[in-house]
């Protein structure tokens, strides 16, 4: 399981057999691979060994007789003689188990871990029949909350330190630690610093006993009553491996499954956001789902039948002809995305189709940059990041990046506000909004920019020494350089970041890129043509015309409008404006950075058709609402941030009359008197593989044989792995994941036709964007995403909803001094377009001259996405003045 074990073979003797180990591999892992499972508690294959539980003791022959050694902590050496089955080993292991059980409350019948507990299992397998411990056991108050989501029962704790190590070593947030001594040692949060990690749920999952429990699962079900589906998390585009468990058609729990993408970890939103699908188990909570089609009658949305809703939609669409705009689809399955592209571009004939809401990056950049994989982080010479806070946007990608940093890979960061990555960065360059490209130029050796940046009234935003350090860390020519680029700031034009990325690609020709767009399947949606100017498979309209002519009724002849262009055309009544808007699982009224534009545009559409799983601000204004299935109800595939296609498995049935994304497209095509020609999800997948060059060779059979991590497209560009058996002690609760037919690796696959694009597509990205000079009286706005925001997943998950902060503006203390107000005072932010009242927080890490806001947080008098009220999509950057109220 250790990916970094170099393939140098060591031979040693295990219970009389000759066995091989990889160099650097621990004895416990080598033995496991050879079929000998040594019992263990503290060892976890994704963390450094510590050798504290002593359960894995084995006998090792040495010059002075044999000694007992923890097999998780010793690496086999050539000729080593090891016994795991001697009397001495047996007695030592029995002894350790008996010691572990001494103070253990043995309340298995009421314990959440009962039935899937490594302690219980190993007691059955190796333990003594009955306890010789007749003393009074240690007592603690039980259980105590150690965070908003996690409770701790100290009586059950076996002090294995998995949780504390996870916090310190993997998440880098040592917010829980041991306190006390002897058998009173306990896990505890710090009195002054709460356990607020975005990754807290992992501690619950890896706890080998029932000491840590998660509020959203406590007493929800007994493990043997649970059904499990192995799937992909669609909380964001990392696409973590998950085992989704349910009972009686309600989701009960989501567990991380080991694999090369996520290493078995999940973020808390991915883990607990299931409440937004079937509700929280302990409350009669309404997950806010749309369960029937709805039609606006007399100004009010009322439930109707599918056929009535579809006829109404078809009628509106027929009237509109090709004056139709389609926005969204980044949360759909690949098959759903393809179905909707085929409907919009191939039947309706509009190219005004955009999966992104002006919050991403241009498709030509995504397709044009040479692609990196998450696995590349493990071997990178250096990583450059230009994104918002990764631990908020793509949380588990942050963990994978942290691993690289931990191994010593230098991380160079360009950021507008210090964040999680800053804390692991080798060098971090703070830039004000609009200045990213200038700093990138300086990184590439163009010093003309320095003077310009230095001329800012507040001075240079970064330490020149950091720039030199960054330059030195970036490998010449970009060999082994992985660049993670995403939207740094939703209050500035994404073209700024795109131009900077293009410049980097030019200066570091060997660098590869992960484009960190956030929505779960935004990558699949773009690949399959849910973006203006492209047809499925990353091909331009011109290139694709002949390719699709045989199968599709039509293809658009001219590039259509992006989301912002559609809304602006609607708002201004410009020629070419769509008259009908079809919103595919999107909620522009909440998610479009320019909130006013979203409202103005939607108001002007003659008909708004919203395909949605949840009630949102936008469904409330719609004319027709069509209920769609969401995460964990769907069959199909999704594509993650790397371009990796993996399988989605349904764990529960859809509520009410919700239909799958592709079914709705098919039915709507029918209602329009057309025919998508496909009737099953497999048929859609097969057509994609047959027609879309980026997906060539991606057969259902191939996917079924690969590990749950799926396959990076184009097929053949990266090795494909089969599934390894999971260590039940490392992944308690995960039911055995079926072994996959592929061997460990299958490299020689039919070369897919090379995806079109590459450097040629980058031509569409401007070389530079001119940025207005600073205004000495204004603060330049940086707006970034948070994990817990006003989106449907969080607000509909009772466990997560309380974690959403109210909107505040963070400014440098000097800005508050100038205004003469204290931190926490409500101030007025005034942009060219609007004003917003919210508390100002003094934060000396804020770059002088900058104001930092969170996206999609509400204020006292602005529900929904307060920051969006300040942003003007037509401005390159957003300047605000801060005033007393």
């Amino acid at each position, binding site marked *: 399981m250790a990916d970094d074990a170099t393939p140098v073979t060591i031979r040693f003797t295990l219970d009389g057999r000759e066995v091989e180990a990889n160099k650097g591999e621990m004895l416990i892992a080598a033995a496991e691979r050879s079929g000998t499972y040594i019992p263990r508690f503290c060892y976890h294959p994704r963390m450094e060994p*510590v*050798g*504290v*539980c*002593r*359960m894995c*003791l084995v006998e090792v022959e040495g010059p002075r007789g044999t*000694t*007992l050694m*923890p097999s998780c*902590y*010793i690496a086999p050496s050539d000729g080593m003689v090891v016994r795991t089955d001697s009397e*001495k080993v047996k*007695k*030592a292991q*029995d*002894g*350790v188990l*008996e*010691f*572990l059980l*001494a*103070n253990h409350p043995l309340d298995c019948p009421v314990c959440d871990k009962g039935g899937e507990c490594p302690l219980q299992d190993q007691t059955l397998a190796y333990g003594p029949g009955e306890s*010789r*411990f007749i*003393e*009074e056991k*240690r007592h603690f108050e039980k259980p105590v909350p150690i965070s908003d989501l996690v409770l701790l029962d100290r009586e059950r704790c*076996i*002090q294995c330190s998995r949780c504390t190590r996870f916090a310190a070593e993997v998440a880098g947030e040592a917010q829980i*630690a*041991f306190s*006390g*001594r*002897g*058998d*009173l*040692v306990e896990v505890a949060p710090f009195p002054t610093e709460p356990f607020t990690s975005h990754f807290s749920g992992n501690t619950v999952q890896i706890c080998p006993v029932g000491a840590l429990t998660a509020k959203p699962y406590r007493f929800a079900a007994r493990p043997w009553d649970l059904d499990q589906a192995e799937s992909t998390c669609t909380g964001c585009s990392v696409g973590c491996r998950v085992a989704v468990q349910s009972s009686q058609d309600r989701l009960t729990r989501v567990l991380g499954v080991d694999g090369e993408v996520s290493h078995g970890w999940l973020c808390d939103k991915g883990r607990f956001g299931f409440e937004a699908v079937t509700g929280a188990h302990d409350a009669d909570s309404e997950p806010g789902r749309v369960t029937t089609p709805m039609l606006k009658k007399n100004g009010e949305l009322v439930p109707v039948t599918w056929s009535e809703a579809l006829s109404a939609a078809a009628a509106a669409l027929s009237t509109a002809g090709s004056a139709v705009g389609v926005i969204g689809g980044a949360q759909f399955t690949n098959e759903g995305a393809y179905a909707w592209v085929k409907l919009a571009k191939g039947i309706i004939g509009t190219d005004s189709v955009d999966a992104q809401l002006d919050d991403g990056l241009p498709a030509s950049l995504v397709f044009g940059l040479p692609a990196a994989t998450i696995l590349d982080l493990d071997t990178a010479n250096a990583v450059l990041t230009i994104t918002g806070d990764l631990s908020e946007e793509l949380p588990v990608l942050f963990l994978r990046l942290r691993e690289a940093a931990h191994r010593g890979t230098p991380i160079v960061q360009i950021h507008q506000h210090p964040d999680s990555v800053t804390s692991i960065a080798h060098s971090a360059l703070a830039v004000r909004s609009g200045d990213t490209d200038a700093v990138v130029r300086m990184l590439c050796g163009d010093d003309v920019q320095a003077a310009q940046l230095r001329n800012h009234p507040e001075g240079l935003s970064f330490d020149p020494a950091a720039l030199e350090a960054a330059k030195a860390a970036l490998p010449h020519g970009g060999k082994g350089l992985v660049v993670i680029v995403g939207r740094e700031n939703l209050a500035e034009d994404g073209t700024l970041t795109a131009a900077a990325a293009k410049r980097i690609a030019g200066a570091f020709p060997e660098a590869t890129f992960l484009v960190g767009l956030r929505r779960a399947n935004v990558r699949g949606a773009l690949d399959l043509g849910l973006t203006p100017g492209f047809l499925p498979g990353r091909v331009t309209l011109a290139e694709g015309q002949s390719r699709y002519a045989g199968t599709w009724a039509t293809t658009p002849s001219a590039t259509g409008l992006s989301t912002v262009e559609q809304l602006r055309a609607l708002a201004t009544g410009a020629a070419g404006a769509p008259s009908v808007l079809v919103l595919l699982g999107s909620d522009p009224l909440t998610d479009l950075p320019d909130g006013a534009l979203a409202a103005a545009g939607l108001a002007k559409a003659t008909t708004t058709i919203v395909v949605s799983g949840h009630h949102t601000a936008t469904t409330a204004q719609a004319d027709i609402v069509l209920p769609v299935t969401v995460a964990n109800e769907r069959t199909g595939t999704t594509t993650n941030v790397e371009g990796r296609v993996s399988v989605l498995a349904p764990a529960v049935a859809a509520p009410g009359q919700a239909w799958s994304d592709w079914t709705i497209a098919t039915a709507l095509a029918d209602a329009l008197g057309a025919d998508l020609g496909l009737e099953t999800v497999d048929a859609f997948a097969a057509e994609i593989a047959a027609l879309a060059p980026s997906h060539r060779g991606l057969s259902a059979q191939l996917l079924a044989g690969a590990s749950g991590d799926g396959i990076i497209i184009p097929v053949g560009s990266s090795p494909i792995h089969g599934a390894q058996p999971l260590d039940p002690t490392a992944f308690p609760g995960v039911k055995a994941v079926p072994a996959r037919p592929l061997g460990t690796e299958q490299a020689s696959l039919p070369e897919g036709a090379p995806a079109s694009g590459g450097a040629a597509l980058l031509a569409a990205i401007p070389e530079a964007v001119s940025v207005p000079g600073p205004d000495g009286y204004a603060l330049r706005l940086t707006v970034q995403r948070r994990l817990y925001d006003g989106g449907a997943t969080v607000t509909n998950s009772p466990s997560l909803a309380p974690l959403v902060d109210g909107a505040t503006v963070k400014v440098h203390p000097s800005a508050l001094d100038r205004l003469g107000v204290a931190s926490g005072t409500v101030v007025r932010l005034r942009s060219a377009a609007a004003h917003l009242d919210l508390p100002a927080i003094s934060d000396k890490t804020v770059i002088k001259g900058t104001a930092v806001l969170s996206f999609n947080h509400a204020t006292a008098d602005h529900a929904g996405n307060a920051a969006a009220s300040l942003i003007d999509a037509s401005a390159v950057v957003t300047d605000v003045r801060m005033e007393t109220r």
Partner: protein
Amino acid sequence: MSTTIVTARRAFDDSFTIERALATGAYEGLKKALSMTPEAVCAEVDAASLLGRGGAGFPAGRKWSMLRKNPTTYLVINGDESEPATFKDHYLIERDPHQLVEGVIIAAYALQVTQAFIFIRGEFALGLERVTQAINEAYAHGALGRNIFGSGFSLDLVVHPGAGAYICGEETALLESLEGKRGFPRIKPPFFPAAIGLYGEPTVVNNVETVSNLPWIVSNGGAAFAALGEGRSTGTRLFALSGDVERPGVFEVEMVKSTFRDLIERPELGGGVRGGKAVKAIIPGGVSAPWFFPEDLDTPLGQDEVAAKNSMLGSGSIVVMDETRCMVRAAWRITKFFSRESCGQCTPCREGSGWLERVLYRLEHGGGRMEDVDLLLDLCDNIAPGLTWPPQQTTICVLGPSIPSSIHSAISRFREEFIAHVHDGGCRHGR
């Protein structure tokens, strides 16, 4: 017998002041050392056969030679002394801080270390004050800091008070604590701090008494030191004698030349068992050590001599228990100490110590069962398989396998006393 090395200033009430120290030859050894090459100083220490005085008795010269070559190395002095009945470093820290500081500087010079630490048990308030003062005075005197006595050698020395955990005396836990972490012993490998120690750099850890011998060794030569004692056990040792003796205290005794009986009975030393009673058992080298009994009294006070009888001279603390002492109670008290002080990191020690303590408590206070006696032995065996000495272990550090020593000793020798406790529903005299 009258040879004194580390307690040479014993006669002076003001032995801790720089004036007295200088008047009695302090820092002369250092000056001599600085006139020699570092290798020559090491050679003298090697020749002296100076065994570590912290418990394990590892030769200081050997340990120094194992220090991995590295741009940064550290020297750490262990003054945590927190074991019950161990108080000899306490004496040196309070009474002769300049000798300690001088010893540290000599060791640092020999090792060419430029940053050293003295980790002192936090409860030694007076000792901390005096060592701190001595260090300040040494800086003022030119014996510490830049260019010591014009030799070109520089050294900084920092005092670090412990936070009250016995386990921080274990050298790797000490290093963790010094780094600001929880005092958890480090798991092996790496086997020695000399390879990977403080902040991951090669580090020598020596006991307070060990380095307090250095000024004398340098002044008088390693050979003079080696001429004292016998075999590997050279020079003198400080013994902290306590328990049922007329004159408990710290005594400096030439190694091997005296026996346990001498130490206990000689009028200028222990002055005999209190009240003229008979010896029942002796703890020969700290509470981790297997016990001695009356027939062992003539064992010489030497490291190998005690080891030959399956125990250890350890930390040099000797506890005498007279014929009236309850062996169950003694084992219980010692086990209680260990169970409180187990760092709690590894299972057999964390859980085993508490379990053993509770069983012993029941035996002593009523509620003992016949099967408890063998249960105790078997639990001990699960911590230190085979119950041999030196012990095997299922634990990370040797605190764990130290726990069985007293229990195993007491039961092996006085099983009937345990059985009587079961019959009597507890201890008859509670002493």
